[in-house]
């Protein structure tokens, strides 16, 4: 797991940035380091309130900020510029091909901050910069496992080599689920609480099946059998069946595992011949969906049981008796229906 910093020159080297942005400052300013994965806009700071501007974040100046700066009287402009550049941003970006006011350009140069310009409109420029910065600046980690999209739930299968992760994943894929990555998975915290997995370029769409070797899932099963990236929502750890081990029998408490700084639900599934792991994993995914929609089967069951265990009031009227009688044999009745 690592937290990084990114220099302005590294940002400019990214293809999507290189084709649309250019640097106007001194080349030494490109050594400045950016520490946050999103750009910031001046907004209220234009009134002189610079308290919440971050000194490790790229500042973007679009039409409205630029227009406002141009309305200021020279003295007010000079004061404002002095306050802004003193925050010591690593870089400024002027969008829409806007020309920075000369006083501001001078202030930026004086404080050795990078100055970039783009012809892109602000929203497009923000998207491109945020994408490149997020890629490099968020918490990332590489893990060993297979990530499969099962009914839209990102299920990460882990376990010792040889336990059969790839075989289970292959069975899931043959039943219409989608492979994200086999064996080596890059994980990234794209925003707080959300971890997304993707495959290394070299092994994308490939799997290794013992006895068959390396196979290409997209070629074999088609474009719908793969996807580029997927949020990881559940970790399924496959284990050799051990009679002495205490596996979760209730599902009341969720265990968590931290992946790229994000806690992810973690279930341990024992593998045994004759146990369809594909089916168990599909049901685990359905259960996640159900929980996301507000129904927790295990808790609902436990609540019903608790209801039964509560002492029955001694004095009951006929209406209450009827409802108690109705509750005692619901399963048999539904079987008949």
């Amino acid at each position: 797991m690592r937290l990084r910093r990114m220099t302005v020159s590294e940002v400019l080297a990214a293809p999507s940035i290189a084709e649309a942005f250019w640097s106007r400052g001194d080349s030494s300013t490109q050594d400045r380091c950016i520490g946050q994965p999103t750009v910031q806009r001046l907004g209220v700071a234009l009134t002189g309130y610079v308290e919440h501007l971050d000194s490790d974040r790229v500042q973007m100046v679009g039409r409205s900020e630029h227009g406002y700066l141009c309305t200021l009287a020279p003295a007010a402009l000079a004061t404002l510029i002095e306050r802004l550049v003193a925050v010591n941003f690593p870089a400024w970006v002027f969008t829409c091909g806007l020309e920075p006011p000369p006083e501001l350009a001078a202030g930026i140069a004086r404080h050795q901050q990078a100055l970039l310009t783009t012809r892109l409109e602000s929203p497009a420029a923000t998207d491109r910069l945020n994408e490149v910065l997020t890629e490099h600046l968020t918490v990332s980690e590489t893990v060993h496992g297979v990530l499969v999209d099962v009914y839209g739930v990102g299920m990460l299968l882990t376990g010792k080599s040889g336990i059969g992760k790839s075989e289970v994943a292959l069975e899931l894929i043959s039943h219409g689920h989608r492979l994200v990555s086999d064996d080596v998975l890059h994980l990234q915290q794209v925003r707080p609480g959300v971890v997304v997995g993707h495959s290394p370029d070299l092994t994308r769409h490939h799997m290794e099946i013992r006895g068959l070797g390396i196979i290409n899932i997209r070629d074999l099963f088609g474009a719908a059998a793969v996807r580029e990236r997927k949020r990881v929502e559940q970790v399924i750890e496959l284990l050799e069946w051990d009679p002495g081990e205490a596996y979760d029998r209730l599902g009341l408490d969720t265990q968590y595992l931290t992946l790229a700084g994000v806690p992810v639900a973690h279930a341990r599934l024992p593998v045994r011949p004759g146990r369809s792991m594909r089916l168990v994993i599909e049901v685990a995914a359905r259960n996640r969906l159900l929980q996301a929609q507000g129904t927790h089967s295990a808790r609902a069951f436990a609540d019903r049981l608790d209801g039964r265990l509560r002492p029955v009031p001694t004095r009951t009227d006929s209406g209450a008796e009827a409802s108690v009688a109705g509750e005692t044999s619901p399963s048999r009745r539904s079987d008949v229906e």
Partner: protein
Amino acid sequence: MPGIQKEFVITNKLGLHARASATLVRVATQFRCEVTLSKGDQSVNAKSILGMLTLAAAKGSTVVLGCAGEDQEGALLAIGKCIEDKFGEE
């Protein structure tokens, strides 16, 4: 991670290509301990073919072999020998 580590230089002509990776994985899977191979800040499970291939270690690159588990000494020795023998190639 506890365990033992040793540095190796990939000396065979083709580097850690597919067949060489398979040879190394075959040796690694004979042991019970966890085996990792690292290049720079990238570390992969040496019992995984796809993992080894993502390392893309060319001739001359330095890799660190790490073994952790009950039979770590034997594993380090055997896998190390496999790398030093250029995976039975030139």
